[in-house]
């Protein structure tokens, strides 16, 4: 039995409380404990990369009586994403959060959010997933409104109300699944649901689940909170929200429930493709007219998550690999872009594109990382965005959906358009008179920016040169989804119940 699995959830949870306790003695201790905790979680998630599929029975209770933690390929990939972006955001906020008061409470909420996300991807029980989803969501509601100014409070209130309604819809789905099968364990419910004919209750439960998770991942028409919440949060929290939270709580949960528990009927996949296509187009068009840099990045997130959901909804092996690879890449370049927008705001004091200009001469690190992020997301080789977008278009063509492939290629051109606009107004051009004396960002912020840029470039080149990345990380994750689609999730069920 692998005891690391519950530790990777319990350590951030415990250290959040210890941080608050120790910081009553001295304020600087909070920095140290948060850094140590996220570093330990990152190391543990790397250690877990090599292990095979296991299930862990909490408290010694056999399933379906107790809560089980399940570890397979999809979980491994998501744990890697969550903990690495969490570690880099913590390093960044060592110096960025100096201008806010109450730094220990920030670290406590941040560690609670990381613990909640780790719990969502690890658990094998539907109601436990709801509890961890609520832990991560409530921590993020409080973190969005952290600097209590006018706009942060408004954005946080809207996010709160919409997010609570979405979680309630998910709980409705859990209740309906319990009514149909008599258990909340995912593997047990999956075994019973796959052998029943399709009833209206199953369709109702699927609709409730899809509605709840689409709001958490920001698909149109449930996206109304995203363009307000992501710009108003402090920059490392925007990176966590847009880079990890909408994937771990939204896309992963939707994929796990639809493919492994409910049995992916073609109607659910068609719904996913429709929502994804609408988000892709609407997000892209709305981002062109934005003059606030972070708001433009938020609309761009809506568009890219549309890409991921289309690829997952196609139902072919190439589609799964393309969607998961784009999810991985999006977390790296979107967090890079949000962190560099935070650096721009830290140095110049504004994020309005009309008032910026000529940063390429004065701030080398910030402007080069912005350029790397913008080129990656637009799909320029040899950065990683090019390969994942190409795979998505190829998967659409292979599944003979010509309209989707044309839309994906068209929105990719639109992405290039608005990022070129952002680069021209921020990096090139001339420096306004009021910003003659700006300096480069301090070392912790620069460290995170440079590491993420190296990851963006490195993943692209590694994918081109050798197939080890794809075989080690992407293929096991795609196999999990394929197993759910074709084999009625027999491999998942045997991991939990048979072993």
């Amino acid at each position, binding site marked *: *039995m692998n*005891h690391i699995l*519950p*530790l990777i959830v*319990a350590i951030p*949870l*415990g250290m959040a*409380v*210890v941080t*608050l*306790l120790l910081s*009553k003695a001295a304020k600087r201790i909070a920095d140290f404990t948060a850094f140590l905790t996220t570093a330990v979680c990152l190391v543990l998630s790397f250690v877990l990369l090599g292990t095979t599929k296991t299930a*862990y*029975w*909490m*408290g*010694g209770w056999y399933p379906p009586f107790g809560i089980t933690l399940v570890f397979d390929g999809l979980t491994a990939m998501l744990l890697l994403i969550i903990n690495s972006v969490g570690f880099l955001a913590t390093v960044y906020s060592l110096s960025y959060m100096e201008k806010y008061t109450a730094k220990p409470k920030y670290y406590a909420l941040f560690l609670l959010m990381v613990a909640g996300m780790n719990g969502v991807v690890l658990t094998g029980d539907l109601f436990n997933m709801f509890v961890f989803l609520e832990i991560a969501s409530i921590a993020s509601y409080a973190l969005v409104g952290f600097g209590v100014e006018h706009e942060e409070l408004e954005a946080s209130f809207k996010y709160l109300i919409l997010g609570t309604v979405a979680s309630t819809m998910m709980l409705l789905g859990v209740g309906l699944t319990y009514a149909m099968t008599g258990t909340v364990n995912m593997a047990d419910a999956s075994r019973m649901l796959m052998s029943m004919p399709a009833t209206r209750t199953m369709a109702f439960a699927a609709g409730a689940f899809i509605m709840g998770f689409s709001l958490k991942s920001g698909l149109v028409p449930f996206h109304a909170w995203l363009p307000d919440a992501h710009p108003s949060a402090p920059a490392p929290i925007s990176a966590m929200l847009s880079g990890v939270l909408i994937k771990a709580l939204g896309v992963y949960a939707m994929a796990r429930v639809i493919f492994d528990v409910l049995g992916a009927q073609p109607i659910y996949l068609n719904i996913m493709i429709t929502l994804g296509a609408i988000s892709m187009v609407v997000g892209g068009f709305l981002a062109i007219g934005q003059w606030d840099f972070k708001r433009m990045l938020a609309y761009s997130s809506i568009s890219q998550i549309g890409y991921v959901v289309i690829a997952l909804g196609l139902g072919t092996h190439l589609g799964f690999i393309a969607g998961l690879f784009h999810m991985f890449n999006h977390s790296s370049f979107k967090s890079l872009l949000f962190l560099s927008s935070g650096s721009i705001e830290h140095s110049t004091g504004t994020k309005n594109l009309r008032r910026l200009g000529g940063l390429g001469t004065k701030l080398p690190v910030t402007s080069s990382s912005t350029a790397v992020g913008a080129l990656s997301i637009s799909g320029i080789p040899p950065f990683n965005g090019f390969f994942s977008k190409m795979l998505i278009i190829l998967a659409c063509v292979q599944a003979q959906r010509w309209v989707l492939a044309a839309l994906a290629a068209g929105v990719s051109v639109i992405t290039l358009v608005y990022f070129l606009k952002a680069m021209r107004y921020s990096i090139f051009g001339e420096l306004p008179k009021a910003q003659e004396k700006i300096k480069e960002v301090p070392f912790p912020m620069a460290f995170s920016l440079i590491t993420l840029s190296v990851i963006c470039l490195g993943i692209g080149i590694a994918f081109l040169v050798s197939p080890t990345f794809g075989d080690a990380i992407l293929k096991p994750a795609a196999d999990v989804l394929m197993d759910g689609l074709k084999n009625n999730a027999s491999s998942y069920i045997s991991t939990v119940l048979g072993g």
Partner: protein
Amino acid sequence: MNFKEMTRSDTLGMTVVVKTIARLVMSFILLFGLYIVLYGHLTPGGGFAGGVIIAIGYVLLVLAFGGKVALNKLSNFWASMWDNLGALSFVCITFLGLTGGYFATNFVAHGTPGELLSAGTIPLSNIAIGIKVGASLYAILIGLSIYGRIVTEED
């Protein structure tokens, strides 16, 4: 001034009748909350419900005597300290379950069902949760009512 003078005084808090009864009833409320926490594995209730009742005992003090008197009895610092200690002891109980083989096992000896001292770690978890919920609900209500005053009506 001590509680007797505070009860007789006309200007502090509510009327004399309310203050006298609040002083008497508060200890019974705390005792009742403690009963619900301790017998949580036998009767309905448990950690959360008992914690809410313990918090209500202190909130009665806020309502009858005013915020400053309640903060003298249980200050902001000590409320958050008890909150953190309760959560920390709950996490420690689940970590210590590793000694029984798995995470969060019931590793203390189970007694006979139906007695007060039985069911392993469940009463210990109930006590930790009761302390945590009581302290944090009290801190929330103090924060909303006294510190959350709108700036225009400061007194």
